[in-house]
Each structure stands twice: as structure tokens, then as C-alpha cells.
């Protein structure tokens, strides 16, 4: 089994605000991230796939296929957007990095089997860096346990 990791970048803005909390509670919980007009990040996204090497090609996955999938399902909708207003999942979901990484997982999984028929490679991990001081990781193998 080999893991292959590909790095992508997108710029997007968000406002952390929960409709389930009062204005004051929102300000206390999210601090500056609750400012009404949002703020932006240069996100770095890593997608890790795992599988055996294809006998003929020596590849775990054609990288161009992964690039196309990530681009069509994630980057095109996320890059240079305001999550709260522009990305449908965040109409009611707070666009924390925790939630963003889950949405990325769901979006990739929706078309995974079409792009990679035959069961390989599998989605292994998603890693999202919001700033150089914050990063979030979702590990599919641990998730399944």
C-alpha cells in the first residue's frame, strides 16, 4: 500500500456565526472571526489517496484524474468565494475548518467511484491548513473504526 498526497490551494472568506447562539454568545465564542463582513484565508488543502501500484503504469492513481475531481468538486466552488453566502452547504452550517473538511470529504466521495472505478485508490486523508498556525486533518481509516 502506498499513499500519494497532492497539495492544492484556494482563497476564500468566511464568518463564524451560529444561528443557535445569541449575538453576545457568538462574539464570545468566535471572537474576531464573528465580525459581520467575514475575513479571508489562503487555504492549503492536501488530499491523500492510498492503494497498490497499478502493475502496468506503476501509479497508485492517475494524478490528472484526482486533480480534475478536486477541481470540479471543490476548488471551482470554493476558490475566491464567501463560504457563508456562496457555497450551498454553508447556508446553515458554520464554515469552520472542521465543517469545511467534512464538506470536502462528502463532495469527493460523491463522485469517487465514477472517477476511480475498481475500488482503488481509496480516499485516505484530507488535510486543511487555514493559517500557518492552524491545520485540520480527517483520516478516513480512523474514521471508519
Amino acid at each position, binding site marked *: *500500500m*502506498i*499513499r*500519494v*498526497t*497532492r*497539495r*492544492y490551494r484556494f482563497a476564500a472568506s468566511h464568518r463564524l456565526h451560529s444561528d443557535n447562539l445569541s449575538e453576545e454568545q457568538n462574539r464570545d465564542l468566535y471572537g474576531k472571526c464573528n465580525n459581520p463582513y467575514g475575513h479571508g484565508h489562503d487555504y492549503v488543502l492536501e488530499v491523500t489517496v492510498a492503494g497498490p*501500484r497499478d502493475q502496468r*503504469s*506503476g*501509479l*497508485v492513481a*492517475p*494524478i*490528472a484524474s484526482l486533480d480534475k475531481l478536486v477541481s470540479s468538486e471543490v476548488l471551482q466552488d470554493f476558490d475566491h468565494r464567501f463560504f457563508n453566502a456562496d457555497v450551498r452547504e454553508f447556508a446553515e452550517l458554520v464554515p469552520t475548518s472542521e465543517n469545511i473538511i467534512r464538506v470536502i470529504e462528502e463532495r469527493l466521495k460523491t463522485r469517487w467511484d465514477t472517477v476511480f472505478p475498481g475500488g482503488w485508490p481509496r480516499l485516505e486523508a484530507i488535510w486543511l491548513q487555514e493559517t500557518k498556525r492552524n491545520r485540520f486533518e480527517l483520516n478516513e481509516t480512523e474514521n471508519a473504526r
Partner: protein
Amino acid sequence: MYGAAANPNGHGHNYILEVTLEGEPDPVSGMIFDLKRLKDIIQQSVIEPMDHRFLNHEVPPFDKVVPTAENVAVEIWDRLQPQLHGGPARLQNVRLYETEDLYVDYGGEAS
């Protein structure tokens, strides 16, 4: 399948290799492995034969095996692993960066 990577006269990368060992520190030395020795092993088995070479022509088995990042990482593992077991430390992972935005990890067939 390979796109621009299939151009007949090849192309180059500034590969970055990360080798991870795992083990309990030796009670006397406080180390799991002598890093100087590790450096020598990597130098001899990987860097000297592969650095500034055209993998397909100059570094077997890549005259017969496609030198994808996956295959190069496995070859590096196979060269290092026999020299890195038996002691308190064992080879845990080989990470090979082909570019800043693409890398592969290999931890042996058991992983």
C-alpha cells in the same frame, strides 16, 4: 496516462527524501539510531547512485520499471530496509517529494 511526464527525453525533479525510523531510545546513547550512520547508509544506497542521474538509463531497475514516484519510493525502501533492522530502530516510512505539491509515502508491504 502520463501526459507531459511521458516526453521522450525525460524531465527532472528536485526530489526531497524523508526517511523515518521508529524505536525506543537506547538507554546508554539516548538515541534510537546513530544519525551519522543513517546519513552514510542513505548517501551510499540512494544519493550516490541516484543524484543527478537519468533514472531510466542509469539506475537499475528503472531501465525496466517505470520511474514513477511510487516505484522510486519502493525502490528506496527496498535498498534501506535491510540495513535498518535488527537494532532497536526500524524503518517506519519513506516519504518522497517529487514536487512541493506531490509526494508519496511508503511503509513497506505490511502497512
